[in-house]
């Protein structure tokens, strides 16, 4: 057990230094792009075209293959950011601060996607664009917290200080989000006895459920790809006057 722990620690320290991370990521990036495209396309085509039509909602339920994975991704990105924030604050690892900054816009955009697809899904099935459903409301609040994090980071000039400011905010966020979810769910039952809940998946037969899992996997891979690209850009921008950047990156002029 001790040996494995050292191996992880060395890998983590190695990732801590931007040049090594950059070299490692340019090796891994092509593979990541390839697998992401394959699984993402597979999941979506399977869900959108080949899964059976739902007897109640007809074909419009296929939006679930975009809405549910992006909602799940929005929340798990925030958990990822809280873990990065904790690492930045406790062990002062520079790269995990940059990881946090790189993940924030991706999380915000997937949460926005979940909100938009949720409201588009509501139009044909319930006739209204916006439905004060418990899960949609907590996704909306999660989007506000993402906006607060991005806004705070952009308002502080010294980038390493800004990283530690948003890591504090993400730790506060992760502590309060379960409370927000529970109180919004409770609020939902108080005002509307839950005749419907948007994302309680209609009775999902297995062959509807499998494409959903593949889509979720595809979305996670897409997050990994976008995160790596964002982080590479962040590392280059922050260390552009360092020697290793011109030697390793500008010379090959990717």
């Amino acid at each position: 057990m001790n040996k494995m722990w050292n191996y992880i620690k060395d890998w983590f320290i190695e990732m801590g230094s931007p040049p090594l991370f950059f070299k490692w990521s340019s090796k891994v990036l092509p593979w990541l792009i390839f697998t992401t495209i394959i699984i993402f396309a597979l999941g979506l085509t399977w869900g959108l075209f080949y899964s059976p039509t739902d007897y109640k909602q007809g074909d419009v339920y296929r939006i679930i293959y975009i809405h549910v994975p992006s909602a799940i991704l929005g929340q798990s990105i925030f958990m990822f950011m809280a873990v990065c924030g904790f690492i930045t604050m406790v062990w002062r690892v520079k790269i995990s601060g940059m990881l946090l900054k790189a993940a924030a816009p991706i999380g915000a955009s997937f949460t926005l996607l979940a909100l938009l697809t949720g409201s588009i899904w509501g139009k044909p099935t319930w006739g209204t664009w916006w439905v004060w459903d418990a899960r949609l409301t907590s996704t909306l609040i999660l989007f506000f917290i993402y906006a607060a994090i991005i806004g705070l980071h952009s308002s502080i000039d010294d980038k390493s200080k800004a990283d530690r400011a948003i890591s504090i905010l993400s730790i506060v966020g992760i502590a309060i989000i379960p409370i927000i979810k529970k109180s919004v769910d409770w609020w939902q039952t108080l005002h509307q006895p839950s005749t419907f809940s948007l994302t309680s998946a209609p009775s999902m037969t297995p062959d509807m459920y499998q494409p959903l899992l593949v889509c979720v996997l595809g979305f996670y891979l897409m997050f990994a790809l976008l995160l790596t690209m964002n982080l590479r850009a962040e590392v280059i921008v922050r260390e552009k006057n360092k020697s290793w950047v011109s030697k390793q990156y500008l010379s090959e002029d990717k």
Partner: protein
Amino acid sequence: MIEQISAIIHMDGNGLYVWSCFLLLILIIGINIYMPIRKLKKVNKESQSKTQ
């Protein structure tokens, strides 16, 4: 074959919603892919103008 494709496009009347969601997905992922590339291009341009 043709009949099947048009069914896919129309999805009994609700096709518009499903495809608009799909377009939103592509749009948002496109933005997320484009942002880092633009940043890297800016760094390249800066370093080129410096080296001249």
